[in-house]
């Protein structure tokens, strides 16, 4: 049975399929804490995009580099940091994928989706860390059937 608060710090290989197992675990906790379907969809999408960014763009696909996941989930909110071991980037310089010809580019929409679906997003450590928060809009009582 899931307690009211789960916190884990996991250092994983920089492989998306490994990170998805962590994602699945977090989502199952969110289900048990009665997060809404919309919240779970948002958390899933944000984690997927953050993990792909960390592996492909951060670590540049180098499986010798790790991705660190530091998360806390409570009945009230989900808080996660995803940290890669790449050279970082300047988030402010990211092109808006909705602007002009960027609309027709085949990539570059991940950060926009993360910002759109999560309640709070910040980048730190020279862009190597993305910190995201999603509130439980149901605010359910844990353990109640």
């Amino acid at each position: 049975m899931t307690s009211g608060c789960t916190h884990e710090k996991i250092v994983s290989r920089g492989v998306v399929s490994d990170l998805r197992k962590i994602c699945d675990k977090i989502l199952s906790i969110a289900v048990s804490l009665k997060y809404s379907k919309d919240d779970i969809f948002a958390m899933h999408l944000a984690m997927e995009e953050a993990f792909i960014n960390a592996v492909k763009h951060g670590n540049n696909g180098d499986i010798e580099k790790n991705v660190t996941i530091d998360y806390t989930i409570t009945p009230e909110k989900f808080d996660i940091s995803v940290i890669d071991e790449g050279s970082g980037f300047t988030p402010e310089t990211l092109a808006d994928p909705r602007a002009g010809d960027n609309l027709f580019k085949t990539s570059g929409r991940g950060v926009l989706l993360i910002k759109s679906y999560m309640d709070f997003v910040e980048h730190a450590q020279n862009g190597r860390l993305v910190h995201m928060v999603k509130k439980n809009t149901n605010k359910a009582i844990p353990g109640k059937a």
Partner: protein
Amino acid sequence: MNEVKPRISVYYAQNATVVTLTDEKILEEGDIKSIEDSIMPLIESRVNLVIDFSEVQFLSSTVLGLLIRVSKRIYEQKGRLRLCSIGPKIYDIFKITRLDEVFEISEDAKKAIKSLA
């Protein structure tokens, strides 16, 4: 022998080829590549293509990139593309990224086919 699960189903209707994405979740890079490899031969010549999302409950931005590549190929061949049966949660992703303005999206396959008549 490994069982290979098809990622799309295809049927031909009037003047359109209709591709239904059969996965509920489209995430894995290999799956997306497999979908692309299945669709591209269908649009090597001028064709009107409908992509049906009725089975799809979840996708990542990587799939949006695939759709852009498919649309470019179709337009190069002077064909036309319609997307259809996109559920509300997936449609939100199109709206947020403004791809609802790039793609012509129909309510269902029947209407998409009709729009290509």
